[in-house]
């Protein structure tokens, strides 16, 4: 395939995806409704997992403060919450999207529609939880008078990077899991321990010059950016922020490309 026809193929793909935007909306709505319909906790569900994670983070941070002798302050606890929300969004969105094609086997084998909507709707449903939790967090931040700075303007862009990264990875992993069913387990193992390799409960800075290794993980650089802008009221590290942007966009393009290329093979390999 020549370069121009490849581009044209992708233009057609996005055009089609746009035509099916109502379906994307309906499937997202379905995923949200099902999650909340028969749940005792209802909307509290969106806060449950982040709340547990924040508690775990505070415990870890307390342990660190005991060892280092520095007292734990409120800002530290809040910084954990600010990092935990994007992190839980990321892992739950990937977990749901990995399963999205295999879990909708009937649809994939029987009806034609752009298959991108399946992982995308799983991600958007998790985005809904993320928004609910973020609203709650904003209230908490206001109560603790954390204040606001001009750097908050970086947040929308940081979130766009996060979403691009999640979509790219979700598309890639969902199609990979269709062909190789053990991908799901690999992802689960990585996520179980991923929180230790990502600066969620701690700051990358405590590793000094070795912090590069934590920031090479784009989630790490995005979380650090968010923390700087929201809690520390500092200018985010522009190098690592740009790095996260380039990385996320590349993953996004790569994910779409692979997914689209494999799409015709889905029905017979599922």
């Amino acid at each position, binding site marked *: 395939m020549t370069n121009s026809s490849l581009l044209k193929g992708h233009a057609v793909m996005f055009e089609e995806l746009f035509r099916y935007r109502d379906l994307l909306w*309906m499937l997202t709505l*379905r995923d949200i409704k099902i999650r909340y319909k028969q749940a005792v906790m209802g909307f509290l569900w969106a806060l449950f997992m982040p709340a547990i994670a924040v508690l775990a983070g505070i415990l870890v941070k307390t342990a660190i403060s005991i060892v280092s002798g520095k007292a734990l302050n409120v800002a530290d606890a809040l910084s954990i919450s600010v990092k935990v929300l994007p992190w839980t969004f990321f892992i739950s969105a990937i977990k749901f999207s990995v399963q999205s094609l295999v879990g909708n086997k009937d649809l994939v084998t029987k*009806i*034609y*529609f752009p298959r991108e909507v399946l992982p995308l709707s799983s991600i958007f449903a998790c985005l809904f939880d993320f928004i609910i939790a973020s609203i709650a967090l904003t209230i908490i931040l206001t109560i603790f008078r954390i204040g606001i700075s001009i750097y908050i303007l970086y947040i929308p862009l940081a979130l766009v990077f996060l979403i691009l990264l999640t979509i790219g990875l979700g598309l890639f992993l969902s199609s990979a899991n269709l062909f*190789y069913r053990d991908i799901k387990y690999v992802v689960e193992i990585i996520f179980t321990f991923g929180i230790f390799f990502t600066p969620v409960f701690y700051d990358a800075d405590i590793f000094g010059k070795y912090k590069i290794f934590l920031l090479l993980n784009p989630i790490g650089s995005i979380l650090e950016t968010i923390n700087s802008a929201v809690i520390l009221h500092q200018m985010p590290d522009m190098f690592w922020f740009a790095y996260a942007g380039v990385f996320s966009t590349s993953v996004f393009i790569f994910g779409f490309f692979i997914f689209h290329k494999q799409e*015709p093979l889905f*029905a017979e390999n599922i």
Partner: protein
Amino acid sequence: MNVIEFTNVWKKFKVGRKFNSLRDTIPKLFRGPGIKKGELKENEFWALQDVSFNVKKGDVVGIIGPNGAGKSTILKLLFKILAPNKGKISIDGNVSGLIEVTAGFHPELTGRENVYLNGTIIGMRKKEIDKKFDEIVEFSGIGEFIDTPVKRYSSGMFARLGFSVVAHMDPDILLVDEVLAVGDMAFQAKCSQKMRELLNSGATIVLVSHNLTLVQNLCKRVILLEKGSILKTGAPEEIIRDYQDIVYKKSEAELKKQLNVPDYKVQINKDTLVKILDVSFCDGEYKNKESFNIDEPISIQFGYDAKEIIENPTFSLDIIRADGVLCCSSNTKDNGYLIEQINNKGMIKIDLGNINLAPGIYLIKLSIWDKDMIHPYAIRKKDIFRIETAKFGNGATPVFLPEIEWGSLNKIEKGF
């Protein structure tokens, strides 16, 4: 203008289920060179081979063929669910199918939510569904249950709602797989009404069905598939006849294979007292043949070879259709044909006359019994004859097609 173009389409499938895992694939990457696109690996077969056809706008085309001929594969390719291995498919316009329509239903959601979900899955816009929503619910007959989760629906309600959504889409190309048999009589009447509306609206329709009556009545052109290739394309009458020939020959071959299994040959008596030999079929002019026209007289001849004298034997004949239906039976005792004794070799003739059996394959069972038909001496159940399809009747398969005269009784009607 062609709305569907199949150009030299090839499609292969794997035999059996193969589970992929990374664990198996990574070592494979290091093994020998890959196999080229157009070749078959082991466990693969061609489901379609070099299939080309066109469908013009407004055409109603039928695709028929025995099981495994590749009909469903063509449908799935048209639906864009599958992609061909070689060749090109171009489709102009949006495609919809009256097929399995409840695939997108989620049990926890209400009927209303599922209508919207399923509607968008098959490519409708939300606005479009808003407009047609009342019509859809009305058509399905779900009524007040529309806001109940569909997990509480009966299977009939489920299918009706699913069909109603699909029926209210306005496709450029409609694919119909098998005839819908959902719901009660009233709902089916609604379905056929909808089908007729679609036909009259000038939509392009591709119909895949075993219901030959439907194919004959609706289609202008029929494609006959066998073993993944197009055998013939043409007018329905002609193609359907060819198709039936294939089907009959196939089931005849199967039947013969089945009968050659030794089990069937087991005789009741080990020291066979008497054997039935040389069964043959003749037409009215006593010419030997195995296939007959529907209006031809048929007679059966067979020989016997008795080692000892058998007093007052009874000969019996059963005619059994390929699907196991006993069509008629007769024996010498009830027929009043008394045989005093048989010894050594002899021949028996049975005249069936114009028996008017419907086209199909028939198996005959010949047996020799004692006087009171308590104990069989010999049974033979392996001879087959065939009634050809002289002309295509309706889809149902009756046992007999006797000549029946219809007339009117106007006088009596006036009397009432």
